[in-house]
């Protein structure tokens, strides 16, 4: 397979904050670290975000290779097509998660060559020693992707950690079931530690784990507080930047670096707020990115929104932390680190349940939208339906319908394309839709006048 024209590298997106601009090099270094680890023989684990085992991996000094991240990089560099096609020629349907397809295509290719595919973005993704999937309930690719990858790297063992959270049901409270959820997760995490010890030769340092668990709690609190600063008018930072600052949240949790990053960002935002410096000079519309992973190859669309005076003070995507002091239990009292992690996990996912219960016909996901609309003074909602991932992209229409029913009619726009498959995207069309949406915002906004 040859690419006759070099994939057109996209112009660098302008960020509003200095902190966000630092992310690119950080990610590049992260990829380089994995490649370096491979050279030095340090154990490498393929891992997924949002699986709450960050501290475990870090405490055992295992190098995480975030496979979703690497696929996202290929997408952002507009160089994913060849890996997607490769996966398709292996027999994977193009309708499956394109992160997974990109990763599988890459793995198949790397294994066939015995070296990195030609011109692999940022040096490529190193072969792992173990793969940490997760069973239930976030998404199917979390347990199928690595299993499928074994077809190309059959010697690399996979572990699937069971990580459920209680569903939101009308006829019982999640507290009735949370104990057995926590118990299960703890046992699964224990199983993970044993698996890692068995396959990497590393031993768990339980004291270090406790420290990292504490660091993570503090980081969560700090992130939450930092993001809350974006309520300011004008808002100092938008979702475009947040698609960068998600990196320390989802790929660097349980490291001092992540904590320090948010410390800096926090200061920068405070400074901007004091000076009334907004994401755009003249803020006209405050929008919420209300669902969906971004189209990584089209982050410039955020700048296009900005050019129309629209800002994004808040997003639901990648806001995978809450302030732990807002939970209804005192996490600091839970000394067993695994139990601590399990409770934090369950409390995070059930965080909006009580609020939702108070409003008839509500649902936690919708309740969160309502809360953000009010807290961040939101005029409209933008969502992105990426065709290849069901987890974050099914239920968007329904959430908007529900919102309308139980709260109010708020302008909304659902963009359709994909996370890395650029063939699903058409810039002219997308911008035409954005233009029309801005018009509807204007219409609704001026209604009262």
């Amino acid at each position, binding site marked *: 397979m040859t690419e006759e024209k070099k994939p057109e590298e996209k112009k660098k997106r302008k960020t509003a904050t200095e902190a966000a601009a630092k992310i690119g090099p950080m990610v590049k270094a992260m990829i380089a670290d994995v490649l370096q680890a491979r050279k030095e023989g340090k154990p490498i684990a393929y891992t997924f975000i949002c699986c709450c085992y960050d501290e475990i991996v870090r405490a055992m000094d295992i190098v995480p290779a975030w496979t979703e991240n690497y696929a996202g990089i290929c997408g952002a560099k507009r160089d994913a097509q060849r890996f997607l096609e490769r996966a398709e020629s292996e027999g994977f349907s193009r309708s499956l998660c394109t992160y997974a397809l990109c990763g599988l295509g890459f793995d198949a290719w790397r294994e066939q060559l015995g070296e990195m595919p030609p011109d692999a973005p940022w040096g490529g993704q190193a072969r792992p020693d173990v793969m940490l999937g997760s069973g239930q309930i976030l998404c199917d690719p979390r347990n199928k992707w690595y299993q499928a990858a074994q077809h190309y790297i059959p010697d690399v063992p996979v572990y699937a950690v069971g990580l459920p959270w209680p569903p939101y049901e009308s006829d019982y409270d999640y507290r009735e079931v949370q104990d057995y959820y926590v118990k299960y997760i703890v046992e699964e995490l224990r199983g993970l530690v044993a698996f890692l010890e068995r396959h990497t030769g590393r031993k768990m340092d339980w004291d270090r784990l406790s420290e990292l668990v504490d660091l993570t709690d503090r980081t969560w609190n700090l992130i939450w507080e930092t993001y809350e600063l974006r309520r300011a008018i004008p808002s100092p930072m938008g979702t475009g930047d947040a698609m960068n600052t998600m990196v320390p949240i989802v790929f660097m949790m349980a490291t001092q670096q992540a904590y320090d990053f948010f410390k800096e960002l926090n200061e920068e935002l405070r400074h901007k707020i004091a000076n009334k410096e907004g994401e755009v000079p003249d803020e006209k519309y405050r929008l919420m990115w209300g669902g969906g992973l971004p189209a990584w190859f089209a982050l410039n669309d955020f700048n296009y929104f900005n050019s129309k005076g629209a800002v994004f003070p808040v997003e639901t995507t990648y806001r995978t932390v809450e302030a732990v002091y807002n939970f209804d239990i005192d996490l600091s009292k839970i000394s067993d680190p695994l139990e601590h992690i399990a409770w934090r996990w369950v409390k995070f996912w059930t965080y909006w349940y009580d609020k939702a219960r108070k409003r008839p016909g509500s649902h936690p996901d919708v309740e969160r939208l309502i809360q953000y609309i009010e807290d961040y003074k939101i005029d409209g909602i933008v969502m992105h339906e990426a065709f290849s991932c069901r987890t974050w992209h099914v239920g968007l*229409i329904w959430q908007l*319908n529900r919102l309308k029913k139980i709260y109010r*009619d708020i*302008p*909304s726009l659902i963009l359709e394309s994909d996370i890395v498959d650029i063939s699903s995207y*058409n810039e002219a*069309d997308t911008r*035409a*839709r954005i*233009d*029309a*949406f801005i*018009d*509807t915002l*204007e*219409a*609704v906004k*001026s*209604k009262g006048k």
Partner: protein
Amino acid sequence: MIHIAGVDIGSAFSKAVIMAENKIIAYQVKPSGGNYRLTAEQVTKGALTKAKLSLKDIDYVVATGYGAANVPFSREAVSDISCLARGVHYLFPTARTAIDIGGQFTRVFKLDKRGRATAFLLSEKCAAGSGRFLQVIAKVLQIDLKDIGELSLKSRNRVDFNTGCAVFAESEAISRIAEGAAKEDILAGLHRALAAKVQAMVERLGIEPDCALVGGGAKDIGLVRSIEESLACRLLTPDEPQIVAALGAALIAGEKAAAIKASR
């Protein structure tokens, strides 16, 4: 007196509307052809001639549509949705939902009592969901576009179509004709297929009465009836549905011109 113009360079047809004192004094519709810039000039000139005016008499021109960038003499380009909403509102002040079936897209939108679009949906990028689909079929059936509506209403024995692709629908239509199917039955089937796509969009947006149908597709009475049937409601259709976006553009031009005048 202020004269204003709206120019809509659509994917299939271009339209120009000239207004004065909130009334349409002339309009022109012509196929967009290949050269948008040229078409824009011609269609505007055509309308101006009818109005016995020339371009310099016009205070403000707003362009819209697929080829809006090709109207060098316009002061500004405005999105189709906004223009359509304004046009629909002018014609039918009670309309709260509108469907526009154009050459390239089908649009469904809601509008408020001032004629502003407050929500909208666009069809996917496939000819199977647009007016273009009917043009293609009209051509193979060798029927004039303007006759397909009436003809389709005569159908007693609809042929159901199961293809999604406009190009394949074309060859399927050919096969059906060869098998002896009547043209009206084929048209009725195609109208039904398109109406189903429109219905799905309308249901997603949620219909609020009254509902208007505009765009070239509204000239096709067969399609209008078919959509009415699937939505189970009456649709408001203007006499000249194709110029609604141009009309809206002219109305917006009027507001701008008035604003300028006021500020002087």
